């Protein structure tokens, strides 16, 4: 069986066993997004205006939250070292892990965000674009978060350090993603934003896995 | 010379607080950084001598 497929199946199986843990980021997303109406006020017009940014930022934070521990359990039980010694390319195994993590944490966000969008009184077209941008964006966040997790492997500082490292790098995705939704809200075409977001996805998929592999070697060797 | 008097110089056309605030802050921060670095260097030398 090819390397990434084996890792993917293993991680999915592990996630299925700890279903609550896997769904925690989703819970965080709902709670965090839900705080905004409480903090800002229930006016529908206001909520509709801030919805693209708020939902994208909350999704960004939720995606980051889940990925900080991506390599931690493998590091603790020694399977990470096994992966480094395996005959398969480390990049391939990393890809399998990140893909599994996206399926369990990123994809649920893509599904949940439209429901929260309704609570923010978003138009149907905006909700559609929101889902699309999160579909393109959450993998980008997955790659960046995995890089942060690899660099901070075994450190006590935890999630806050990963956030500080990774969030500046996630700014372009946030700008294009939230911007696309805002564009649709204003009646403009989101095509430019979405193209740029797509380009970011392609670029990060081609480049970041290698950085993650290098980071793992730095952290473990 | 640009300034008719010391008062005019300090007043900076009404923007004295901002201009002098910027300069004092900047020079202060840079001087503090230099001081901390020299202190770090001195400490490292003392540790090395031991």
């Amino acid at each position: 069986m090819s390397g990434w497929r084996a890792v993917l199946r293993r991680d999915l199986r592990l996630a299925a066993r700890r279903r609550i843990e896997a769904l925690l980021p989703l819970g965080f997303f709902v709670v965090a997004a839900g705080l905004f109406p409480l903090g800002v006020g229930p006016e529908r017009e206001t909520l509709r205006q801030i919805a693209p940014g708020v939902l994208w930022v909350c999704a960004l934070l939720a995606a980051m939250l889940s990925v900080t521990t991506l390599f931690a359990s493998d590091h603790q039980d020694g399977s990470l070292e096994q992966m480094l010694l395996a005959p398969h390319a480390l990049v391939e195994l990393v890809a399998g892990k990140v893909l599994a993590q996206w399926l369990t944490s990123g994809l649920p966000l893509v599904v949940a965000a439209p429901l929260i969008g309704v609570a923010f009184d978003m138009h149907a077209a905006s909700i559609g674009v929101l889902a699309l941008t999160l579909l393109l964006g959450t993998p980008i966040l997955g790659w960046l978060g995995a890089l942060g997790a690899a660099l901070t492997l075994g450190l006590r500082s935890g999630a806050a350090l990963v956030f500080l490292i990774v969030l500046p790098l996630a700014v372009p995705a946030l700008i294009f993603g939230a911007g696309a939704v805002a564009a649709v809200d204003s009646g403009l075409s989101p095509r430019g934003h979405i193209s740029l977001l797509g380009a970011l996805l392609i670029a990060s998929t081609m480049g970041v896995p290698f950085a993650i592999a290098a980071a793992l070697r730095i952290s473990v060797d | 010379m640009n300034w008719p008097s010391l008062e005019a110089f300090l007043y900076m056309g009404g923007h004295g607080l901002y201009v002098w605030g910027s300069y004092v802050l900047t020079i202060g921060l840079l001087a503090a950084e230099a001081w901390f670095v020299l202190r770090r260097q001195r400490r490292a030398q003392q540790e090395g001598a031991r």
Partner: protein
Amino acid sequence: MQDRAHPGRSTLASLPGAEAAGRWTRFASPPRFYALAGAWLPWLWAIALASGAIGLYFGFFVAPTDAQQGESYRIIFIHVPAAWMSMLVYLVLAFWAAWGWILNARMASMYARALAPTGALFTLIALVTGSLWGRPTWGTWWVWDARITSEFILLLLYLGYIALTEAIDEPRRAANAGALLALVGAINIPIIYFSVQWWNTLHQGATISATAAPKMAATMFTALLLMTASFWAYTFAVVFARARAIVLEERR
């Protein structure tokens, strides 16, 4: 290349063209760097203070008042050099960190560590002076224009680098992890800058750049160059001093 068993000696010395290489490897050896930097330090401080003094003289006593912004524009003489240095130092840091990681050169990694706090400080100075300049000119303490926002993200990149390298105890891992992060950051800077520009032009609220430079009289430009030279020399001085301290600390 560094001979790891004997940190003072360089294996490049045995290759052809060694004499020319020897002049460069001098910088690769921590003890030699220590001595050389120590000799240069007084001169660097002198240049920093002298060009700073002359630059400030030009800036305050020769350069005229700006027609639109009045006297508040004089903040430009520290704001712009600080911003330039903040960007330059990050690129130099990424370069040396990468060099240290890929070629396993210890001195290069020490340069990178020494550069980070100074670069972060210049970024902070650029942001604060930009804010103080923006207030009398545009009425608000903070404007989310493209350049200030990019500068703010640059500060976060510095802080991330410093936080990561400080969090890792083992020096080799800290240096290499930092190098990877700095490289990723450096590659991302054009992307981040472009996206922030994009973001800013779409949200029409902040179309005016809060720190638009006035039309440059020659005297203003001279003062600006002198202050930039001063900041350059200062950076060399502080970074060399810090690197010397790091050389001693890592010897223990």
